[in-house]
């Protein structure tokens, strides 16, 4: 989709640079002249929100790193010092901790958006796969970050998650001890997690560049899921998308500010204000809310190795999603059956999240098993089958025609001939 840059440098310095490194032209063609579909709705602003949060996490993280001490004996106290002694330390830490929470909130919305509008389908498979890769790196970054304050939840989360690798037959224990650098989670583990926690966000930034590159090669999908056919279907990125993205980011920042100033520990767990104690596990350990659905899947299965495999498969299945959905129609607006199963799937994911927060006993375990089974059935059976049996509604001829009819799409946009 990306047209060649129309950027013409006017002043002398810009001309000089442009002939040697056309970087201004690159930015101009990607973020100014870049044609975006004219019917994008607010679900399309989450990419910009996510980019903003990534930068915010890196900035707050680097300043926290100036005060944090990654040693078992001092980590907890250094975080307490950040909270009490460092100037504005409480603000920086609450921004970083709640920023991580909202990062996941935004990425999940971003992914459900992709699922609803079929954004993973041909030709955007690589774009989607890079997104799943970013999710994996985010999970690793957030997990290791959560270990850093070295409270009880930090310590036991680190223990339970690293022990997942001990389920691997034969070499499991060796791998786990290699991860720990000892015979249990200890200072050595904390220190290496800190090094990786510092590194991962920059790796995420690298994959984000590839993600945006892939996006600009295929062009954005849109709520109708049909291709751009003419210039009439698009508007320029600047000012239209730029301003809309900025507005959405500000609304998102209000949410972040509300959490930071009024509910700074709402997403956290009080036990993490108790220093790590390797001899005592808290009575009820739960991961951060954004890992709860995966945690429920792990616990649903009464066998250690099978539980771990299910946990990893829950993410792995996302990589092959583009090939599991057999329908060629992208947007759920034109897929009456898929649209219902999409919402069932959303509810199942939220349900798994709720079950992950409850103790692993009785009815909760049974419910987790049913929802875990459904999660996989959705991808492996429902999606391939609906694509074959569903009769999609007629697609509009073009984005501009649908927009100018005023409905923004849907069943009203039928085949009323094409003038454009």
């Amino acid at each position, binding site marked *: 989709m990306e047209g060649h840059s129309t950027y013409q440098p006017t002043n002398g310095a810009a001309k000089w640079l442009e002939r040697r490194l056309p970087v201004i032209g690159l930015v101009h063609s990607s973020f100014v002249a870049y044609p975006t579909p004219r019917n994008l709705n607010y679900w399309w602003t989450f990419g910009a929100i996510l980019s903003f949060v990534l930068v915010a996490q890196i900035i707050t993280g680097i300043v926290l790193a100036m005060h944090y001490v990654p040693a078992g004996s001092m980590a907890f106290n250094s975080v307490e010092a950040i909270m009490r002694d460092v100037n504005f330390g409480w603000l920086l830490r609450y921004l970083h901790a709640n920023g991580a929470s909202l990062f996941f909130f935004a990425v999940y919305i971003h992914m459900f958006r992709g699922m609803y509008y079929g954004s993973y389908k041909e030709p955007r498979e690589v774009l989607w796969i890079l997104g799943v890769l970013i999710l994996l790196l985010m999970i690793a970054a957030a997990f290791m970050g959560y270990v850093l304050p070295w409270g009880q939840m930090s310590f036991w989360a680190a223990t*339970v998650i690293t022990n997942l690798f001990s389920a691997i037959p034969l070499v499991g224990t060796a791998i786990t001890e290699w991860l720990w650098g000892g015979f*249990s989670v200890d200072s050595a583990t904390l220190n290496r997690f800190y090094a990786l926690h510092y590194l991962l966000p920059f790796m995420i930034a690298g994959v984000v560049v590839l993600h945006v590159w892939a996006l600009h090669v295929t062009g954005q999908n849109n709520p109708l899921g049909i291709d751009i056919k003419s210039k009439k279907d698009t508007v320029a990125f600047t000012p239209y998308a730029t301003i809309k993205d900025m507005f959405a980011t500000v609304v998102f920042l209000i949410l972040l500010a509300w959490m930071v100033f009024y509910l700074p520990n709402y997403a956290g767990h009080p036990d993490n204000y108790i220093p790590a104690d390797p001899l005592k596990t808290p009575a009820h350990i739960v991961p951060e809310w954004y890992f709860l659905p995966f945690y429920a899947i792990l616990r649903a299965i*009464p066998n250690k190795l099978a539980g771990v495999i299910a946990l990893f498969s829950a993410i792995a299945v996302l990589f092959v999603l583009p090939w599991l959905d057999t329908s060629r129609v992208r947007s759920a607006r034109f897929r009456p059956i898929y649209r219902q199963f999409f919402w069932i799937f959303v509810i199942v994911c939220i349900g798994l999240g709720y079950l992950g927060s409850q103790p692993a006993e009785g009815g909760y375990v049974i419910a987790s098993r049913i929802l875990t089974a459904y999660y996989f059935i959705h991808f492996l059976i429902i999606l391939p089958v609906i694509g074959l049996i569903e009769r999609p509604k007629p697609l509009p001829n073009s984005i501009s025609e649908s927009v100018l009819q005023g409905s923004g799409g849907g069943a009203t946009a039928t085949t009323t001939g094409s003038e454009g």
Partner: protein
Amino acid sequence: MANTDTADTAEPTRRDFLYIATGGVAAVGAALTVWPFIDQMNPDAAALALAQVEVDVSALEPGMSLTVKWRGKPVFVRNRTEKEIDESKAVPVSSLPDPVARNANLPASAEATDANRAADGREAWLIQIGICTHLGCVPLGQQGAYGGWFCPCHGSVYDTAGRIRQGPAPQNLHIPVYSFISESKLRIG
């Protein structure tokens, strides 16, 4: 083997051999270079220095336990009651999810009988690593359906000999190398 120009033939040439040999040497060199970067993460010399701890257990009456920290892990030392021992002995080994003793002082194939779990010649004493074999939480003592240990993390239940009876944990609680160096002194490690 002809060493003339063989671009069109499938016959391997001396040059092909040199390519493969060079590539092979480079691969071995790369692997050797990577190894220190991987191995540095393994437990270091200080962690490996086989730490031993000695504990005075003379104060433990039947029905009492204590927890010792060994290699960063909790070790449960328990002086079991008659009732606990009898309950454990009544269980046929064939009915256990994990039929082997997991006792580092015995051969790996030893059966999970009560005698093989308890200290040699001191059947009241049970010394085990207090780490759930599921995902590593510390189980709570004298809880759960079998009066042994209960892991709060994902609900594994162990009996009075520390053998897994219910839940996701695959193995009995592990028993470390230990010995009684006197009537009252226990050495772990």
